């Protein structure tokens, strides 16, 4: 693989949270979601592109995001995902849970 080794593998279950966050502002297609996650994380996080689509589908099935076919910026047909009301709630809840978790882990790690 040609990818730099410095990238971080995503912990199990965090991909869903990142996807929800990525589509929180506006509807995005799959490619844009993966790009956005990499850009914002400054390429630190590596999203296995292959696992993106099953995850999108899982979220859709759970009713957290909904999909619609639309035209992309260069006028190509693409599937756009956006957050549902339930998805927003889930995003808030998971963000809270993540913060609490990382804070607790930080605390533990900082303790001498």
């Amino acid at each position, binding site marked *: *693989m*040609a*990818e730099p080794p410095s990238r971080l593998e995503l912990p199990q279950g965090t991909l869903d949270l990142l996807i929800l966050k990525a589509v929180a502002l506006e509807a995005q*297609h*799959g*490619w844009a979601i*993966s*790009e956005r996650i990499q850009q914002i994380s400054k390429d630190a996080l590596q999203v*296995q*592109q*292959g*696992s993106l*689509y*099953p*995850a999108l*589908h*899982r979220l*859709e*099935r*759970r*009713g957290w995001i909904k999909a619609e*076919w639309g035209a*992309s910026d260069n006028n*190509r*047909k*693409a*599937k756009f995902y956006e957050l549902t009301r339930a998805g927003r709630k889930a995003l808030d809840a998971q963000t809270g849970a993540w913060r609490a978790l990382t804070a607790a882990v930080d605390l533990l790690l900082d303790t001498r």
Partner: protein
Amino acid sequence: MFSDVRHRLRALLRRGTIERELDDELRFHLERSIEKGVRAGLTPDEAARRARLALGGMDQVKEAHRDARGIALLDTIVQDVRYGARAMRRAPVFAITAVATLALSTAALATVLTLADTLLYRRLPVERPGELVDVAAIRRLGTTPLLSSNEAARLQVLGPVSYPDYLAFRDGARTLTGLAAHYPTAPLFVSLDGDGHEINGAVVSANFFSVLGLRPSVGRFFHDDEDRVPDRDRVAVISSNFWRTWLSASPSAIGSRLRINSADFTIVGVAPPTFSGMTSSPIEVYIPTMMLRVGYRWCEDALAIDCTALQMIGRLAPGRTQADAAAELPTLMPAAWAHAPRGENSGVAVTQPRGLSTDDEEPRLVALLAAVAIVLLLVCCANLAGLVSAQSAARTHEFGIRLSLGAAPRRIVRQLTTESALLSLAGGVAGVLLSRAFTGALAAMFFAVDDEGHPLQYGFSQTPAIVIATIGVALAAGVVFSLVPAIRIGRRPAGVQLAERAPTSRWSSAAWLLGAQAAVAVAMVAVAALLAASARTMLAGRNFDASHVALIRVRPRLVKYSPERAQRFQRELVRRLEAVPGVESVSMVGIGSVLGGSSIGVALPAWDADRRMTAGYNEVGPRYFETLQTPLLAGREFDEHDSIESPRVALVNETLAARLWPNLGALGATIVVGSVPRRVVGVVKDLSLRSRTQAVQPWVYAPFWQNPAQIDSRLAIRTAGDPAAVLPAIARQVNRLDPDVPIAETITLPGRIAALMRPVRVSATFVGYTAVLAVVLTAIGLYGSLAFAVARRTKEIGIRMALGAPRGRVLGLVVREGMTVVAAGVAIGLALALAAARLVQHLLYGSAESDWVFYASAAAVVAVVGLIASLLPARRAAAVEPLVALQCD
């Protein structure tokens, strides 16, 4: 929650749409990814490569996506089925061959199962048939030369009982709620408005219908009171069929008169249409046991204790088992039975009434057919395994690609299994449907009339169990034949096949399967030929000529003719029949039937009483052997001068003559037949319907007119043309002489022999069918394998030719490959055929001298078919252009 269900449903129902959307989505992703790469300065190819790497295997993504859809298993099956259907459409010849092969062989199996069920296992179509038991008397037999070895081995038979004995069992039995008596084969000459016919009737006790739990369609059954006083209550119940055909189902039939054996009866009811009796001879009319004297004429008094005419059927009392009844009923046995002589009732047997079979030929026939059907199924499996192997080898490339793209080997194996299951399901269902046609044909060809020309009713029907079993077997066969290639794929390391697309190994892995098929084909063809020749020999007649003989039976005894009156009637009848245009000669049999006899003790005058031997016995009229065209070896046959006043004479067959007078000299010798000394006036050829396993019987004939008690007769009439065409004219002559004299058994001699030879004809047809199928399958298998081998070895053949191999060599190479297998198969097949012929020995008639012709022909047929099947692909191999062959990959 709701969205979840909606998604799953959509995922399941709109699978195609979703897959397409996913495809679009992934393609869009790839394109964007490539664009990005190109913008970053990569070459388009490199960008595409990286994009694919980043995404991971397409198939894996799709698979993961499907798992995420949450319907993986069901979905996979649906997908496999669709894929399978598509694969079939892509290779229709393979699919059609596979389905047809399976259909033809499972149809044979289903037909045998239906036959077995009908003959051996089916219960009576009455209420709670599991509670019914047959109660019969046991008779111990001694050995006589008339019994074949396995008949004698059993030494006991089941028989009927007398009316007083029946009453003792009926009134004493506590383990039964009811015990009925019945005589199910009463020949009743029924006339209604001057239209007379012999039909099959039954004499039954009043409780017969209630014991069976039957309800009348119309009217009522017998009251107990109507079965109490001999000869008083002339009441009859008719079958639904009789009601329809004779009385046009009119309700006014109840209460109307019916003349039965010259006595007037009143119709009181109609039996339900679902019930037509307990045997294959449907019962048309029922009369009560107190009318037994009308229906049974072999005893002076049919209701007396020495007249055993009645069979018994009982219903177990609640909570009682067959074993209980079997323990109780012998205790009710009449005291006289305990010291009964050989051949008379001396015990009680309790059995379950099952199936319509009444003889031990039929279980044997069913076993034989079942064995043949199983062999056919194995041949079919071998053939399909070969086909599927070739087919999957042809798809190696496809599987290789799919494996490389990340499809799990498990998934491909499942795919193959699904395809096989699909094919075998289709084959099984087609087989079940086809077998309906087969049983219909079987019923019409072989099970429609008995040897006396009476209609038979077997009512073959496929039970749900048979349908399930047949489809189950088809599926099992499918799994078996898909396993071979599936295992190979499961073992194969991924990714190595792409380069190695044209392996040059020989096709020997399938060779043994093909050899086995060829062997079975040879054996089947040989056995089918033996059976068919046997059937033909017998139908044509051996030591006689059946082709132009008509038979008819006249029974003045049923209408109480005295012997004097009957004999006047017989003489006049013969005179009139001889005058019928197209009739060449007329003769008759008094005791026994044409080609069948009763038996009698014979001795030389010098012998002690205990040296007597048993021989077959007929009383035959003048010109009997002329009518049958049986060669006379010495002396003369009976003529008009052999009468009641003249000296007693006899004819013997070759076998008896050789046994009693080994040094010739039979003519003029005296033989004691029964207790009457007779002078031998002639020796005739052996006349026999016995198979190779049965020894030809000694036989003695006495003149019809030297028996003063003669009443009934069976006439044999030689005609110039088709005997069937003369039958109506013959029957008319009898009617004209006395319309009340019952006629029966109006049938041609070939028709009678055909009915007697039913096991041979059924097995000849069935084995013939199998043989044709086996030969065709062998040809298909051979052709398929060779064609495939040639296709795979195109390159090798090209190289050989480029190096100077002449086309003839190439042709020979392929043909030799095919014929090596065929030759081995034929050799094994001949051994197999010899073994199989021993198994059907009891069905073979005539001498074994020319059997080798059939073996040789079978070998030749399979060899020639094999040669043709090898030549076709060989010619294609020889036509290979070296340059083209070397260029193809």
